[in-house]
């Protein structure tokens, strides 16, 4: 599964078709928005709010290093979100967004995390399903 995704991302980058993203889901099980939200707000799992802010009033101390997730569902398609989650370097090689489902080019990874991606394929699908629901525009 992972190899297929890596290849797809590489081909997209090479062909300059980044805007299309990754249209095919990584798993056969449809993403669950409730589980996806739980991943996004978890500081040890999704880590998203360390850099992003968004409609998560119950979570204190959001970051301001990355775009506001409010309304992301109207700005990006699921395919575009999937590509950015799997490996945002396909969109911007200098991105500070960690590669959530790619091991490509990683160095000096701690033994605890060696050979593991930050999120598994289903978690990526869950997060995509949740982000798609964020259609409210920022105030």
């Amino acid at each position, binding site marked *: 599964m992972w190899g297929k995704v890596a290849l797809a991302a590489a081909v997209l980058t090479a062909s300059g078709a980044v805007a299309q993203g990754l249209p095919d889901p990584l798993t056969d099980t449809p993403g669950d928005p409730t589980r996806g939200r739980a991943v996004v707000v978890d500081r040890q799992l999704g880590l998203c709010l*360390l850099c992003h802010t968004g409609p998560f009033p119950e979570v204190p*101390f959001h970051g301001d*290093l990355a775009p506001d997730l409010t309304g992301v569902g109207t700005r990006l398609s699921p395919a575009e979100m999937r590509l950015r989650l799997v490996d945002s370097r396909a969109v911007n090689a*200098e991105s500070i967004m960690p590669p959530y489902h790619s091991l490509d080019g*990683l160095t000096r*990874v*701690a*033994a605890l*995390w060696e050979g593991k991606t930050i999120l598994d394929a289903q978690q990526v699908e869950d997060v995509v399903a949740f982000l798609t629901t964020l259609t409210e525009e920022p105030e």
Partner: protein
Amino acid sequence: MTKVCTTALVILMAGPAQSDDRRSGFEFMGPTTQSMQTDDMANPGMLAVLAGERLWNEPAGLSEQSCQTCHGDPEGEMRGVAARYPAFDEVAGTAVDISGRVNLCRTRHQRADPLPHENADLLALVTLIGLQSRGLPIQPDPDPRLTEWRARGEAYYETRVGQLNLSCAQCHDENAGGHLGGAPIPEAHPTGYPIYRLEWQAMGSLQRRLRGCFTGVRSEPWPYGSDGYIALEAYLMQRAAGMTMETPAVRP
């Protein structure tokens, strides 16, 4: 011609102003934490200084000599030392930080066992030595043998590492002043080590602080005392050259 002169003048004026733009971690802190550092009666690092003063005068090892025996009062020979380290040690053929220097003194001259990294006595002695540079500008040692160490440190600083695939530079150059989960990202100038860090509730070295960042990006930290830390310190001190030493600094 006039235009060229004006341009040159602007560039000359921009030089020093640019270096003044660098900000110590002190400036990213709230007023309460700042006053904890600036008030010696409130600064927990001063307890390490007191312990350091006792140890400075205490004979150690088979030599039964103290630091004082060779160096005299710390206010003398130790003035400015922390502001120019790391330095190259001829005999060891390697660059050393102040902790490394203290341990070389212990093994070579006092004939005592080296103290382990982050040992309270070692931190106390290094803090006492660091205090003798407080208020002085960082002036890296011009020894050309350190050039290669600084270059290696800069390469480490720029290299993305760990599962989160981040370099030091991506946070502390490109995103300094931003907020990571609500906490301001400082510029990573090592102006006040050893520091008292509120998160640790203890004194700690730059190596301990660097390990914290490695762990944060899910990278395997080098073992304490590794050359990589000395190389990074040599680069960071060069990068902070001219900034004012603050040891013992307090940090959140």
